């Protein structure tokens, strides 16, 4: 059961080997998490994440393999992960995502579809499975990793940003639908996070690291914030950016990512 500070004892992480997910898992294990189920597509990476979770205090850590390019496995992945938890699952983190290579993907229907699958369709399928299981528990949290890229999609990354935008908006509605069920959905909107996924890209202003993101998540869980911005200032920055006239928006974002 989670405690008064939103610190869970049992967590399921879908996309458990992503760097942000690993940083969050470490923090939660150092607090109260003793059961950690990590689901992902690469056993080697999952094993590394698993031993890290143990190192930070988890006593039961297990892994589940799945490929987010195929939404038909979402139900199985979620059920299998929940079944490994003895008792209630306090927190599900949905950290599945693919940044892709926009220039390569944008004229290729198959690759463009894949971007939508991994960043939108698979998470939506998983959320449908998670929702039912958690509502039956009468308590629990869902943390969906979105992105500030979802708030205003920019041309250099529209396949990624567009899919995240769909997921983000869907989650706003899903969170409302959970009112009164005991289950809470929270949306994490990180800015540019220094990680393997973004290595080599030019760093825009307000870039952050995975550990700072994890800190903001821990705070957001305690505060029960509907949306967790990381760093928090992006909430105000994007409050302005989202209303910029399109030519100006293009100029600003091209500048930032050049």
């Amino acid at each position, binding site marked *: 059961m989670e405690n008064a*500070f939103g610190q869970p004892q049992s967590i399921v992480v879908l996309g458990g080997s992503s760097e942000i997910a690993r940083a969050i898992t470490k923090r939660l294990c150092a607090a*109260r998490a003793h059961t950690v189920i990590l689901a992902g597509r690469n056993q080697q990476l999952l094993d590394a994440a698993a031993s890290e979770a143990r190192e930070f205090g988890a006593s039961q850590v297990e892994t589940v393999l799945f490929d987010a390019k195929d939404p038909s496995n979402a139900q199985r992945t979620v059920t299998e992960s929940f079944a490994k938890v*003895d008792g209630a699952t306090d927190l599900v983190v949905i950290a599945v995502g693919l940044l892709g290579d926009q220039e390569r993907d944008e004229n290729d229907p198959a690759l463009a579809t894949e971007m939508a699958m991994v960043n939108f369709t698979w998470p939506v399928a998983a959320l449908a499975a998670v929702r039912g299981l958690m509502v039956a528990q*009468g308590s629990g949290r869902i943390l969906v990793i979105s992105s500030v890229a979802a708030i205003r999609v920019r041309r250099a990354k529209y396949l990624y940003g567009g899919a995240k935008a769909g997921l983000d908006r869907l989650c706003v509605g899903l969170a409302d639908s959970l009112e009164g069920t005991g289950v809470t959905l929270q949306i994490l909107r990180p800015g540019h996070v220094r990680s393997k996924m973004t290595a080599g890209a030019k760093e825009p202003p307000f870039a952050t690291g995975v550990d700072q993101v994890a800190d903001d998540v821990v705070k957001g869980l*305690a505060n029960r914030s509907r949306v967790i911005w990381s760093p928090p200032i992006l909430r105000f920055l994007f409050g302005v950016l989202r209303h910029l006239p399109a030519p100006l928006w293009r100029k600003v974002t091209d500048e930032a990512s050049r």
Partner: protein
Amino acid sequence: MSRSTLSGWGRTAPGVATVVSPTCDEEVAQALATSSGIIARGLGRSYGDAAQLSGGTVLSNLALVDQSAIDENGVISVGAGTSLDQLLAFSIPQGWFLPVTPGTRQVTIGGAVAADVHGKNHHVDGSFANHVLDMRLVTPDNSMTLSPSQDGELFWATMGGMGLTGVVSRVTLRMLKIETDQMLVDTDRFSNLDEVMNAMVTGDNAYQYSVAWVDCMSRGLSMGRAVLTRARHATRSDVDAGTLRAPRPTRLSVPCSAPNGLLNPLTIKAFNELWFRLSPRHQEEKPKSLSAFFHPLDGLRDWNRLYGPRGFVQYQFCVPEGAADTVRRVIEHLSSSGIASFLAVLKRFGPSNPGLLSFPMSGWTLALDLPVGSPSLPGLLDDLDEMVVSARGRVYLAKDARLRPEMARAMYPNLDEFLAVKDRVDPRHQLTSDLARRLHLVGT
């Protein structure tokens, strides 16, 4: 039967459960027979998750309210869903008061048993259990009357057992005779913690009731400055005694949740300062009403909403007689961290009773109200747990919302004995709560 979102008084970690409200023992037994997981709940004044069970059944005891007359010895038998408020409204006009009352009248008799509540007179009169003659307990397979001599083992597992041995449906207790509805209160102000603790050690035994309010935000020389109030019931010769009146119903309330952060280090510091300055330096035998002395917070309904939607936690621990230094170190740690904490309640406990999970032990207890929100609070409380455990003390389960399972185990050395008794009457482990699951008292 209805689905409701429930949380404790601290308004943290809510969960949804099916709520049933039986009106008699047979209906309680039926609810137990048909639920795989169930816990009783009274007025929801446990601070954490003791009276909730996410995804399970919560048995509201509020319809178990029939009561007998009070006999000439002050003995009364009341339904477990009766609130202390209801009982006092009935008993005070007849000249009887509760032998033990916590800081609020808004708890049920069943809740008072489950948490084995204590009051300002613990150092002389012990806790609630010490005044219970017998009770009815409904377990998944049976129902029985328990007393210290009639299955004393189960009686003492149930007293302070957080509702995990069964559903208490009726309690017989001995009330306290009072001549007036007034208290005579002595108040003293102390400019630091050592002074007030010394005064309590040397003077408490001369009073039936004693409690100190400590400012945990003052630092340096005035660290732990406090106001000590000690009192006795006024007799007819002390005051102009008219008819005895029950406490008036509360009119003031907090209408809705305040914004997060209304109670922050700045506002709380200002409040503590004001409160300290307004308290008399030294005052003797000041007559006060029963409710003004025992239940000042009952004057403001739903005051927990002041903490905003994030809620708050109460940290209450006790340490044995020789560990007064732990109290000092805890307050030091807290005041130097700058974490917002409302007036803390400091009190001396008398000897413990045989309750297996009963909280009080001979020594000191300190209770702190802390708003959720400061990122350093969870870690700070974990530090305090370490200090309390190494002093062989414990944290009060009725207040807890964040202990580690292994800490709870270390603090309650009779836990295994308790679980053996529980196993006997609840072999399928139906009685459980979010607290029990969080602390791994009964599986997860």
